[in-house]
C-alpha cells in the first residue's frame, strides 16, 4: 500500500509533543520508519509563525525532495501579504503548490465571501484543495459549523476538513458528504470501531484522505488502523493515497 500523508508538518512547534521532526530530514526518517511514501506538508513556521516568510521557506526546505509536497497557508489579499485572485494562479503554478491551508482564527481574519469571495471562487475553478482545521473558527462559526457555512457559500470548493478528533464524527460529516461532491475529510483521529467499513459500505472510500497527524499523533497509528481495516483492498489504496493523488492531478494550474 502506498501511503500519501495529507496532514503532517516538520519544524519546532512552540509546545512540542514528545516526538517531533525538527527538520525535513527528520520527517523523512519518521516516514521511513512507518512506511509512509509521500506527504503533503506544512511547517511549524507556517502554522505558528509568519505564514508569509514560511510560505517561501517551505519551498526551499523541500526543494529536491520529491516525496514531500509543500503547501501554502492563505491570508487575505487586501493587506498585500498574499496574492490576490489575479496573481494567485500564476504564483501557485510557478511554485508548483497544489494545496492550501487556512487558519482563520489563528491568523485573525474571517474566512467568508467578503474577505475571500473572488479567491475562493478561483480556487473552486482551479480545483485547488483548501484544508481547514476543525480546531479552527471564523467569526461565529467553528469546527463542522465552519465547514458547513463555507460550503453553503462556495459549494464547488474542494474543501478538506482536517484534524477531526477521535470521538466519532459521522453525525457531522455524513450530511456534508451527501450534499457537496467536492467535500473531503482527512482521517486524522478517525478511529471509530467499524468506522471505515460502516462509512465506506454506504458512501464508498472516495472522500477520505489518509492523514497521520504527525507530530501531534504517533505516525504509525492511522497507518496501522487503515492497513488492517475490514474493507476492500482497493478502498484502502484509495484512502491511503489514491484519492489525494487524484485530487492533486485534478488541479488546473
Amino acid at each position, binding site marked *: 500500500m502506498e501511503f500519501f500523508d495529507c496532514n503532517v508538518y516538520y519544524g519546532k512547534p512552540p509546545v512540542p509533543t*514528545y*516526538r517531533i521532526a525538527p527538520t525535513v530530514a527528520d520527517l523523512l526518517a519518521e516516514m521511513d*520508519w512507518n512506511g509512509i511514501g509521500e506527504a503533503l506538508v506544512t511547517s511549524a513556521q507556517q502554522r505558528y509563525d509568519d505564514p508569509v516568510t514560511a510560505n517561501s521557506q517551505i519551498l526551499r526546505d523541500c526543494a529536491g525532495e520529491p516525496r514531500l509536497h509543500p503547501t501554502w497557508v492563505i491570508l487575505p489579499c487586501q493587506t498585500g501579504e498574499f496574492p490576490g485572485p489575479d496573481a494567485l494562479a500564476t504564483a501557485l503554478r510557478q511554485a508548483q503548490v497544489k494545496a492550501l491551508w487556512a487558519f482563520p482564527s489563528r491568523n485573525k481574519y474571517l474566512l467568508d465571501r467578503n474577505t475571500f469571495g473572488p479567491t475562493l471562487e478561483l480556487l473552486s475553478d482551479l480545483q485547488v484543495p483548501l484544508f481547514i482545521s476543525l480546531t479552527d473558527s471564523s467569526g461565529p462559526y467553528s469546527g463542522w459549523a465552519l465547514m458547513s457555512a463555507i460550503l453553503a457559500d462556495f459549494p464547488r470548493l474542494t474543501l478538506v476538513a482536517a484534524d477531526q478528533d477521535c470521538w466519532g464524527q459521522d453525525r457531522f460529516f455524513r450530511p456534508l458528504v451527501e450534499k457537496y461532491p467536492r467535500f473531503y475529510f482527512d482521517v486524522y483521529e478517525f*478511529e471509530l*470501531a*467499524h468506522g471505515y467499513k460502516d462509512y465506506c459500505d454506504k458512501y464508498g472510500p472516495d472522500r477520505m484522505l489518509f492523514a497521520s497527524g504527525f507530530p501531534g499523533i*504517533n505516525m504509525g497509528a492511522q497507518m496501522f488502523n487503515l492497513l488492517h481495516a475490514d474493507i476492500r483492498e482497493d478502498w484502502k489504496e484509495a484512502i491511503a493515497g489514491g484519492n489525494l493523488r487524484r485530487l492533486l492531478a485534478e488541479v488546473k494550474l
Partner: protein
Amino acid sequence: MTCAQAAKTSPLVNEFLRAGKAADCPVIDAHAHYGPYQGVYFPKPDGAGMLEVMDRAGVRLCISAPHAALVEPRRGNPVIVEAARAHPGRFLAYLSVNPNYPRELAEDVAGLDQRDSSIVGIKMHPGWHEYPLSGPNYAPAFEWAQANRFPILSHTWGHSPTCGPQEVRKVAERYPDVPFLMGHSCFGEFEEAIHLAATFPNVYLELTAAYRVSGLIERMVAIAGSTKVLFGSDLPWFDEHFGIGCIIMSHISDDDRRNILYRNAERVFGIEPAKDA
C-alpha cells in the same frame, strides 16, 4: 506497501504489520466499554460487534464496563457479566460504581465478597459523576480493594479537579495495596502521571486515548518502565488497531511491547497466560 523500516528491526512488528496481529502476542484490552451510548454513533457496540474488532486485532480478551453501568450501575453491571458468560474467555468485567448513590455503592462493593468470577476490578469515573476520586463516597470501594488487593480502573484526566494527578496521589498514598490504573494516564498532564507511576509501586499508566500522543509511549517506558504501562482502547469507541499501532510502531523493544500489550494485564488482574504466548 512502502516497507516500514520498523518491520526490519523486529519480527513482532513485522508480523503485526503483515497480519494485523501476532499469535504469540495475545493482547489484553484493560479498558473497554460495552453497548450503545448517547454521544456518538457506534456501528456495532454489542458483544458480537466488539468480538469482530477483537478478532481482527488479535485481542484475546477485554475487561469492560458497559456504558449503561456508568449511568446506572445496577442496570448496567449485569450486562457485562452476561456477556462474559456468553463469550467465555473473551470478556471480563469491572464493577462500575457511582459515588452519587453512596448507599448502593457500599452495598454493591460489599457484594464483591460473593462476586461472579468474571468481575476482576472496579471502575470509577469521577469526571462523569462529578465527584472527586478522594471523596468519602468512594471510600468503601477503595477500602474493599485495599483489603483484597483488587484492581481499580479510574478515568483520570489532566487539570481535572475530580480526577487529575493530585487526586490520584491522594488515593495512591492512602491505599498502597490497590493496583490502581490511571485510565487515559491523566491526559494532558502526562509528566505528572508518569511521575506517579514511577513513584508508587501500585500505580499504573493506562493508555486509552493517550497512546496517540507522539513519543509519549517512549517517554513512559523510559521513565516509569514498560512494566507500568497497560493497553486499553475504550472499545467500542475506538478500533483497537489504532492504539495497538501506536505501541507497535513506537521506538521501544519487543519486550516493552509485550509488557504493555498483555503481560502487565495478566499480572495485575491475575489472568492465566494464553497457551500460545
